[in-house]
């Protein structure tokens, strides 16, 4: 099994005193707590830190650990670690529910008297809730198709120990009007309960996948419309995409970069009607062209007499 370097996990020296280790643990626990940290493996890191603290905070367990460390470095300090034959952890043992989910390293060396079945089966306990990140496309909010969702749940025996994993597959109809960050509760689809207790729930956390064309603001869709300088100056009719069929839009003459044109009802479906589509004009320059084009620009520059930086010199 893998040897766990508890000192490194907490970022302390092996000869650190207890209060240094305690402070380090507290800092790390805050940093990696899954409710606080946004990192993908926060939960695993948090468990690592908690495990390290469980061992290092107890003088006897720490002494044991230091011995194992010494043995390991004498063996070369690399590769898989085998516990010495007849190893008996000293110090307090017995089942501590807080130890659940720790590594094999901890289980075989420090978990002590806990054995399967000791103390009898776990009392009835409601299954754990599961939170799942569900990325959806904007198109899903207007579609009637159900979306397949797949997730894995741990399986427990009657003693509350993990004995495996199951994969669950559901088809979820995304309700119209759902927004990013919203959570949908699926009752009873979480981890199975122990004994006769109910299963936990699944919470689907909706995450809107960024769309190549549209941005979302509440129930409104924002589309950035590139236009040529002359189109903005003279006005024009263009076709603008929506989440369903494209629509025709008139750009008024004398438009500015950043102008907004609102098309009611062409945004995202909401609980109270549809949001709007907001077209934001973005005036873009053509690529550098030849001499004849540049002459036209030059004429325009002279005729227009326009100083875009007038407000600088005041």
């Amino acid at each position, binding site marked *: 099994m893998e040897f766990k370097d508890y000192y490194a996990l907490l970022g302390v020296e092996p000869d650190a005193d207890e209060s240094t280790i305690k402070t380090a643990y507290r800092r790390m626990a805050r940093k990696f*707590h899954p409710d606080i940290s946004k990192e993908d493996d926060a939960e695993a890191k948090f468990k690592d830190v908690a495990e390290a603290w469980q061992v290092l905070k107890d003088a006897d367990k720490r002494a044991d650990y230091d011995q194992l460390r010494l043995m390991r470095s004498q063996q070369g300090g690399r590769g898989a670690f085998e516990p010495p034959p007849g190893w008996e952890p000293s110090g307090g043992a017995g089942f501590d529910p807080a130890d659940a989910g720790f590594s094999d390293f901890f289980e075989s060396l420090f978990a002590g008297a806990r054995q399967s079945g000791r103390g009898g089966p776990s009392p009835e306990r409601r299954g754990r809730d599961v939170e799942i990140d569900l990325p959806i496309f904007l198109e899903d909010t207007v579609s009637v198709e159900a979306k397949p969702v797949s997730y894995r749940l741990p399986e427990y025996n009657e003693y509350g120990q993990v004995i495996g994993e199951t994969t669950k597959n559901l088809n979820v109809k995304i309700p119209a009007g759902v927004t990013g960050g919203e959570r949908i509760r699926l009752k009873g689809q979480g981890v199975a309960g122990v004994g006769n207790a109910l299963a936990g729930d699944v919470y689907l956390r909706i995450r809107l996948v960024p769309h190549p064309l549209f941005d979302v603001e509440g129930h409104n869709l924002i589309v950035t419309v590139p236009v040529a300088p002359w189109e903005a100056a003279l006005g024009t009719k263009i076709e603008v995409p929506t989440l369903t069929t494209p629509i025709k839009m008139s750009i008024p003459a004398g438009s500015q970069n950043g102008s907004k044109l609102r098309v009611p009802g062409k945004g995202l479906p909401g609980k109270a009607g549809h949001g709007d589509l907001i077209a934001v004009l973005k005036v873009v320059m053509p690529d550098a062209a030849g001499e004849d084009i540049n002459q036209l620009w030059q004429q325009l520059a002279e005729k227009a007499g326009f100083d875009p930086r007038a407000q600088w010199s005041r």
Partner: protein
Amino acid sequence: MVSQVEVTIYSSELCQRVAISSQELAEMVSHGIVQPCDQRAVEWQFDEAVVTEIARAARLRRDLQIDWAGVALALQLLEEVDGLRRENEVLRRRLARLEE
């Protein structure tokens, strides 16, 4: 939260579901972490939607050894940070459109 129907849960069931004592729930209410539908009722009822928040508060207290005032502050700030992150993401994307 998406809820077509307003679902409420009694405090006894709530405590069992989230594995906290009624005393701990009382602390949460007194610190404003959650609000019962009617504070004067004999047995409190809560909106189903607060279950996750209560579970989160309980986890923070247990895992990080914070007192309830600290938990209340942490939750408030976490909500603010979440909101700012979302806003940040939106603005970042809008900015990227202009630079595309």
